[in-house]
């Protein structure tokens, strides 16, 4: 390896492309394929190695009304479940598009080589999941995300006109006259700088789950895309809506937060408190363990608060009434995960679980049809966006979100690129300023440790924006975020100032983005004075019907971050009646 540039070296390489895709999870890969197949030159940047993005961890499956197990399923039923699960805060048009197009996207993925578990008649099998009226999740064991990402990854690298830049992180987006023109990035391997010039940019950077301490999210989920979009003039929305997945591992301490798939409950797992009571009977007797995630997470939290939790502060999740063979076949990675990391054999005894941060319903505000932001040429798809999931996401809707909107937004970005001749050029003072900011920590060997600031941020988000929130806590959190933001202006790398794969430097960059996400979270959570979906306020314990169609929108004003309530477009009558329709109850056959 060549020695990297030194801390002061501001030289950069320039890369020109039609569509720049930032992020290589499901949405980025599907978007890149769509853009490439539309005839554009595409450059995909991934923060990690290709195929390692957070999508790879998705376990349970992808929701689509294929009707292979329950013939009575329909896009209407899927749409109604999604809207009700999101407490009607969803962008109805996104939910409609998603429910209608998800089956085609799943079948298309199969035609590209993805392998799914099968029904007896040989069709794609579908498993039941929380708050889905019918068994709807196409899956392969409990590794569906891996299957999705590997299929798309392989499809992508065999397309023409596609370059993949691995382990490259974007530090800044540039716009000129209201249009996106490019991005500044650094390469982890040698610390070299890259200036991308593009005619369209597709943001697919995922969520910001790492601003919390106990999280199911990967290293790279630091909310980069939301922060980049915000800084270049786009709007964010619903940032108060952070999903706690009901079942993360709690014990041992070292594995706290690692996800336990909802597939365990889908396959018949039951939740009990320390007294052996199946407590979901008291919270949702109709749907029990397969209630929506916000309800189950709050239920477990309530049991623990009431002193009925397990020794390590969780609940028991038990699937051991199923045969060992069945468990190992349907939940192979859960079996392995508990055996190896907790020394628990889930075919013989229960798992201990508690809520863990899982998903950002909020994010960049986009046009429902095309994923366009209010910055010309800047598009977004997947978890980085907001709208589809409203106040609470249903399990399985994320993977089909990536496919449905990845394709649409990739096509829209390509169309934009093809319509707009040559890529504009970022203004050089802006580039120089962004480079100075990026190299800053390397020039401050005595600066504060980015690891310490990051840990403080994670602790304060966990403490002041927990599953149940209130005004004093949120205000305290916001003021502490401001303090941290101030300290972060002089953050160092922890000491060493080399450019070659220096994680201290990388952490300082991530911190910047995490702080923007945290501020948006606290400000939006203070603004929403009600409890709805994932956002629960002990000082406003009930939903306020007047806020049902109000989105809190975050944007950068002259005085810093502003939050504004903006009314959503009313749901058309035809769709209202689809939501209110009564759907035939499904009685499962014994599947084992």
């Amino acid at each position, binding site marked *: 390896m060549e020695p990297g540039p030194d801390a002061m070296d501001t030289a950069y390489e320039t890369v020109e492309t039609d569509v720049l895709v930032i992020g290589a999870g499901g949405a980025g890969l599907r978007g890149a394929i769509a853009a490439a197949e539309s005839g554009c030159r595409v450059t995909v940047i991934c923060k990690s190695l290709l195929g390692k993005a957070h999508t790879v961890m998705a376990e349970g499956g992808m929701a689509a009304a294929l009707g292979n197990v329950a013939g009575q399923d329909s896009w209407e039923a899927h749409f109604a479940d999604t809207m009700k699960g999101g407490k009607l805060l969803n962008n109805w048009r996104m939910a409609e598009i998603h429910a209608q197009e998800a089956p085609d996207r799943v079948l298309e993925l199969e035609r590209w080589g993805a392998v799914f578990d099968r029904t007896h008649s040989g069709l794609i099998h579908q498993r039941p999941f929380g708050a889905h009226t019918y068994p709807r999740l196409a899956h392969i064991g409990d590794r569906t995300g891996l*299957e999705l990402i590997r299929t798309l990854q392989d499809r992508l690298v065999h397309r023409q006109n596609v370059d993949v830049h691995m382990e490259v992180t974007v530090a800044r987006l540039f716009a000129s006259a209201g249009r996106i023109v490019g991005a500044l990035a650094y390469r982890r391997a040698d610390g070299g700088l890259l200036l991308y010039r593009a005619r369209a940019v597709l943001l697919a950077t995922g969520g910001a789950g790492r601003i919390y301490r106990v999280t199911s999210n990967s290293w790279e989920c630091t909310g980069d895309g939301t922060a980049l979009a915000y800084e270049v003039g786009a709007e964010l929305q619903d940032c108060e809506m952070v999903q706690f997945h009901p079942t993360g591992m709690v014990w041992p301490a070292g594995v706290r937060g690692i996800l336990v798939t909802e597939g365990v409950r889908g396959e018949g797992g039951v939740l009990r408190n320390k007294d052996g009571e199946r407590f979901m009977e008291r919270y949702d007797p109709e749907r029990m363990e397969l209630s929506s995630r916000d309800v189950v997470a709050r239920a477990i939290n309530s049991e623990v608060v009431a002193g009925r939790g397990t020794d390590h502060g969780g609940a028991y999740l038990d699937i051991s009434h199923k045969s060992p063979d069945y468990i190992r076949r349907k939940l192979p990675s859960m079996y392995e995960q508990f055996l190896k990391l907790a020394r628990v054999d889930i075919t013989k005894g229960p798992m201990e679980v508690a809520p863990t941060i899982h998903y950002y319903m909020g994010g960049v505000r986009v046009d429902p049809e095309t994923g366009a932001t209010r910055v010309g040429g800047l598009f977004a798809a997947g978890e980085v966006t907001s709208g589809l999931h409203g106040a609470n996401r249903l399990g399985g809707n994320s993977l089909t979100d990536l496919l449905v909107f990845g394709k649409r937004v990739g096509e829209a970005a390509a169309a934009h690129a093809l319509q707009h001749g040559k890529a504009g050029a970022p203004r050089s003072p802006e580039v120089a300023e962004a480079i100075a900011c990026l190299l800053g920590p390397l020039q401050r060997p005595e600066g504060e440790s980015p*690891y310490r600031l990051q840990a403080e941020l994670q602790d304060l988000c966990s403490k002041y924006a927990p599953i149940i929130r209130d005004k004093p806590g949120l205000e305290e959190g916001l003021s502490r975020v401001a303090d941290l933001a101030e300290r972060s202006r002089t953050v160092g790398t922890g000491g060493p100032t080399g450019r070659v794969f220096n994680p201290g430097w990388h952490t300082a960059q991530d911190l910047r983005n995490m702080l923007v996400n945290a501020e948006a979270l606290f400000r939006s959570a203070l603004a929403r004075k009600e409890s709805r979906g994932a956002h629960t306020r002990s000082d406003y314990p009930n939903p306020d019907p007047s806020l049902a169609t109000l989105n809190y929108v975050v944007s950068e004003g002259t005085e810093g971050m502003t939050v504004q309530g903006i009314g959503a477009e009313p749901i058309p009558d035809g769709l209202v009646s689809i939501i209110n329709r009564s759907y035939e109850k499904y009685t499962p056959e014994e599947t084992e």
Partner: protein
Amino acid sequence: MTVSISPLKLSVFRGEADRGEMVAYSVPVREGMVVLDAVLWAQANLAPDLAVRWNCKAAKCGSCAAEVNGFPRLLCKSPVDDYAGEISVRPMAAFPLIRDLVTDVSWNYEVNKRIPEFTPPEADQHDPEPWRMQQVDVDRVIEFRKCIECFLCQDVCHVLRNHGRTDAYFGPRFMVRMASLEMHPKDGLDRRPLLKGDAGVGFCNITKCCQEVCPEHIHITDNAIIPLKERTADAYFDPIRALTRRLGRRSAG
């Protein structure tokens, strides 16, 4: 956080290709800690520029492959209490070193581009009905699809590690990849010429080391490489011709 009385002695390779040394760190132990936790603790508290690749910390992404006490493993799937005494962590030896525990694995991604993608036969491509496949047929490839691309099998393969023959053999990971395509119920392409040629399936001498280190417990040699060798032999080795050749040699000699 539970801190045990005796801290862990962790020794980590620090350095770049031409120079480097093992550096010892003393790390407090907590319940359920894995080696990755220990490395990250050292990074956050003692060695801010300690380079290590990681992502999911749940054994699903395959980023944190390294050699723990000489054995290729995922750092996130190696509980500290599996080891008595000091733990040493070194980068994978088969790939060029970038820094500390991070190696340049880009060769693997180049290899994948050379394997023709999934290609169903014409009739299936244009079939307007959803495909039907039986679970038993799917089960055959599910094992191969479990691969998380940690490249530990590549790291331990003699052909790549000891003989450096990246020019001649794609390695166990890509034998698994090709098996997953060749045995896919709906794939119609014949990759046997590639297997015999550039992919170099013949280079594997079935020591099964790759199989032993696979964190996903894929039977790489038994279920992927040996069947691929058999398929290739079926296509290129004609026993009658071989026999006549041998008889011909004998009568000539």
